[in-house]
């Protein structure tokens, strides 16, 4: 890592080196983003969705992400499942064993905030970010495998912003929100009267039958 650090710094100082730096960054980030090997930290039921995502139906091998049983092989830790106080030191240790650069995905409500164990629990850690720097959060109890694939795509956008020059981020036009406030703004913009509230009744759409036929149900059709 030290050699790569020096190359980045010296390229930044050299006049005209910025062009080479951005090209090298593009190549390095592209190759890193294409093979984000995942450490499957499956501590509860979210691990089932993680397994489903990695097998043939969803098959996120095609994104270059597949589970490895050894933290020393991995780039991204997928925290799937409820984390208890007793499991916390083990996860911390596995995280420390992963080589830099490394990222973390918090999968499911339990690792985001404690989930349904937030209240009245004496043994559950309220969110993996209490002890691990999480990059991408996926909500859901459990999230669908598609969400996990989406998280990997979002993480790839993050990886593409890295630079080999220390302390530098690449300027890229990504769709990711830059802050919590921005994320909230987008949520508000997406909100419609129908989607107001989590328990709002779903709109029934029946494309096979015209609505007037359904209204006359029981009579002559």
């Amino acid at each position: 890592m030290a050699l790569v650090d020096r190359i980045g710094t010296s390229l930044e100082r050299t006049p005209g080196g910025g062009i080479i730096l951005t090209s090298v960054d593009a190549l390095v980030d592209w190759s890193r983003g294409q093979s984000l090997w995942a450490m499957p930290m499956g501590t509860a039921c979210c691990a089932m969705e993680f397994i489903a995502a990695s097998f043939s139906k969803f098959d996120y091998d095609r994104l270059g992400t597949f589970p490895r049983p050894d933290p020393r092989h991995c780039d991204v830790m997928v925290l799937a499942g409820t984390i208890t106080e007793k499991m916390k030191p083990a996860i911390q240790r596995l995280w420390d064993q992963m080589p830099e650069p490394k990222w973390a995905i918090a999968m499911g409500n339990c690792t985001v905030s404690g989930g349904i164990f937030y209240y009245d629990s004496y043994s559950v850690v309220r969110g993996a970010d209490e002890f691990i720097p999480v990059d991408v959060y996926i909500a859901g109890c459990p999230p669908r495998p598609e969400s996990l694939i989406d998280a990997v795509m979002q993480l790839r956008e993050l990886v593409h912003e890295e630079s080999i020059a220390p302390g530098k981020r690449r300027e890229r036009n990504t769709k990711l929100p830059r802050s919590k406030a921005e994320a909230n703004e987008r949520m508000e913009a997406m909100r419609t009267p129908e989607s107001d509230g989590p328990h709002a009744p779903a709109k029934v759409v029946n494309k096979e039958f015209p609505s007037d036929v359904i209204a006359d149900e029981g009579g002559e059709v």
Partner: protein
Amino acid sequence: MSDHLEELRERISELDPTIYPLFSIEFGDAVIAVPLDDLLVTMHRLRELGFDRLGMVTAVDRPEFFVLVYRLHSRALSAGLFVKAKVHKEDPVAPSMFEVWPAADWQEREVFDLFGIDFEGHPDLKRIFLPDEFEGHPLRKDYDHPRVIRRPDYI
């Protein structure tokens, strides 16, 4: 179902008349309620009668005392049985069943972990679910801990 329990009652009265008076049927289950001092002797006797499997050990927190609950199974009698014993709250000590059924090892560690009942004669009595440095016994009704966030009342 109740015929089966009556059969078990008769069978036990034939086999061991000292256990028979402790026998009762509660909510459709065969139950033996034993004083704590006689617990180990009774368990040895029940094992000799054919209850060769310890299915479960748990405890109940009552206002004045703890109740230790054991679930026994017998292949020979094809029957199940609950054994209950009261444990004092001030001095929660009970005899370990490890010498009768080795399966009691982890079960009793669980009861110790969550209820704080000490088992005398247990080979390795330490916490099983919670970290070793955890304070208190969370399934006790009077358990309170600063880490616990109580659910607010919405209604």
